[in-house]
């Protein structure tokens, strides 16, 4: 009996002495390169070619650089969505192809008066350019549409830092084990385009598969400014690793419309679920 107690005591004490010193997780700070990929779905309606809302199913990917310090988050991101737009109506299936490219520059500043170590609020601005190319083979002469939207937006971001401390527990009160220390950042971001510039066909869309693309392309295009014509959000959970790298899971949503009364109205949205890896390099 004494031997059993001695063994258990030694085991317990060895576990106690095996307790790792709590590491301090590096707070996000410095230069990072990130890559996200996921699935994007949404709706698109281009009244110049069709009055119907098409459902888009696209593969999403983005590549970003960002810099973080106590005061600022600066981000440069390029993203792409590629896939299909589809519509089922009266037992008939119509399919088109879409590629979209998004380039964004963003600067957010910590609002220190309302932030603390755990919950931070950022305010800032985004400049982004979104270009979309759609081809509808079902339309005779294969309707080709190219649109470009440039935005200046005000952005808000909230970040909640959650530090899950290392804990020692006992399974059924007998077997001790420890849960690892983890560091998470939960964030919610909202971006409202204050002013957007839409470049798209004004009234008719002459793009066609049978003509020289240099001739009709951009003829009949108009450039129109719209205020508050869209919105984008981003919710994510980032797990900060001990080496400073980050694993990220997120959901983003964006929509834009050049106006309910616009004769050439374009309405589209993307819901994106993504997973990402972010590497700290400095």
């Amino acid at each position: 009996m004494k031997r059993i107690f001695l063994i258990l005591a030694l085991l317990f004490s060895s576990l106690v002495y095996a307790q790792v010193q709590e590491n301090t997780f590096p707070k996000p700070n410095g230069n990072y390169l990130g890559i996200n990929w996921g699935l994007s779905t949404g709706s698109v309606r281009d009244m110049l070619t069709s009055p119907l809302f098409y459902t888009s199913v696209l593969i999403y990917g983005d590549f970003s650089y960002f810099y973080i310090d106590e005061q600022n988050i600066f981000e440069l991101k390029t993203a792409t969505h590629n896939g299909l737009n589809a519509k089922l109506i009266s037992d008939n299936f119509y399919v088109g192809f879409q590629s979209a490219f998004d380039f964004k520059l963003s600067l957010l500043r910590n609002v220190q008066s309302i932030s603390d170590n755990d919950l931070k609020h950022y305010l800032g601005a985004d400049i982004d350019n979104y270009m979309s190319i759609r081809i509808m083979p079902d339309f005779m002469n294969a309707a080709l549409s190219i649109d470009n939207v440039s935005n200046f937006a005000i952005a808000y971001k909230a970040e909640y830092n959650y530090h899950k401390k290392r804990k020692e527990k006992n399974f059924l009160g007998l077997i001790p084990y420890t849960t690892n220390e983890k560091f998470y950042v939960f964030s919610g971001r909202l971006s409202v385009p204050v002013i957007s510039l839409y470049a798209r066909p004004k009234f008719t869309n002459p793009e066609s598969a049978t003509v020289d693309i240099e001739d009709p392309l951009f003829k009949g295009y108009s450039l129109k400014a719209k205020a508050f014509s869209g919105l984008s959000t981003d919710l994510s959970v980032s797990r900060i690793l001990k080496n400073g790298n980050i694993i990220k899971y997120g959901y983003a949503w964006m929509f834009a419309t050049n106006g309910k009364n616009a004769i050439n109205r374009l309405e589209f949205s993307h819901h994106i679920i993504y997973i990402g890896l972010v590497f700290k390099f400095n």
Partner: protein
Amino acid sequence: MKIKIFSIVLIFIIALSACEKLAFDKKIDGSNISTFNYLWEQVGQKYAFLEYKEVDWDSIYFVYRPMVNNEISEDSLFNVMAKMLNELKDGHVNLISPFNVSRYDITMLGPVNINTRLIKEKYLKDDYYSTGSFTHTFIRNGNIAYIRYSSFADSQITDYQLDYLMDKYENTKGMIIDIRQNGGGYVTNVPMLLSRFTHEDTKIYETQIKTSASEDGFSVLEDVYVKSKDKKKYKQKVAVLIDRGSYSASSFFAVSTYAYDNIFLVGDYTGGGLGLPNGGQLPNGWTYRFSITRTIAVDGKNYENGVKPDYYVILNPNAYNNGIDNVIEFAADKLLENNTK
């Protein structure tokens, strides 16, 4: 407290993404009446030739709308809308459903002006060449090049093909390009082919697109040029044979020849089709197309109803029995006449 604040922020952001449909305009219903009205509106606003063709589109609504209600079958709806579109008398206007495609047959506007069997038996014979979409041979004892080009749609013309033709027929006294019954295709083939008949950049026509619903709602006229390439050219005169079946890209080709002193047109008027068609969709899913641009020739005129030949020649009804295509013969005579020394 911090968690509460953060949760409120998250809930607000999530709620916004649920409001997507509020941001978009309402859906358009796909009923028969809605579909008919939509098509009529689209043509009325965007078709490029209503004024040119003197079509009273408002009156046409009152003729055809009473034939439509939400109870008629798809077939009946299609027939009504197809008949309405055929009032435009335009081969570039189609209504496309899963079960039918409407069309206006422009070849019926004029007499048959080619007999392809006669061409094969008496002109191309057995030793013709096939280079890309061009079927060609020598006629008139090797003095004239005869090139049958039956479709601009088969494929893109290449420099290699044109180099071959220019080399082969370099020493002939004239060239005939036969585009009778050529229904059109890639308009990009037009400048490609024409570039071998000029040594300088040549303006071939002007084009403008519909930019608003008003009758005169067109963009400014844009010049369209053929760029002269540094490639082998044909130095003699060229006769282009046309008829009512020469449509769309063929009409573009024919009207472009007005800019060239060394090319003339022989045959019947073309079928027209000098507008670029624009594809679209209706609320019930069917698709349509019609022309939303117009073309102005170098002489300032609109030839949408047919490009006028320089020499109006109609095929003799007994041509096959006689073994003579009088349209080809007329063109060959003209080419040789111009080359008499």
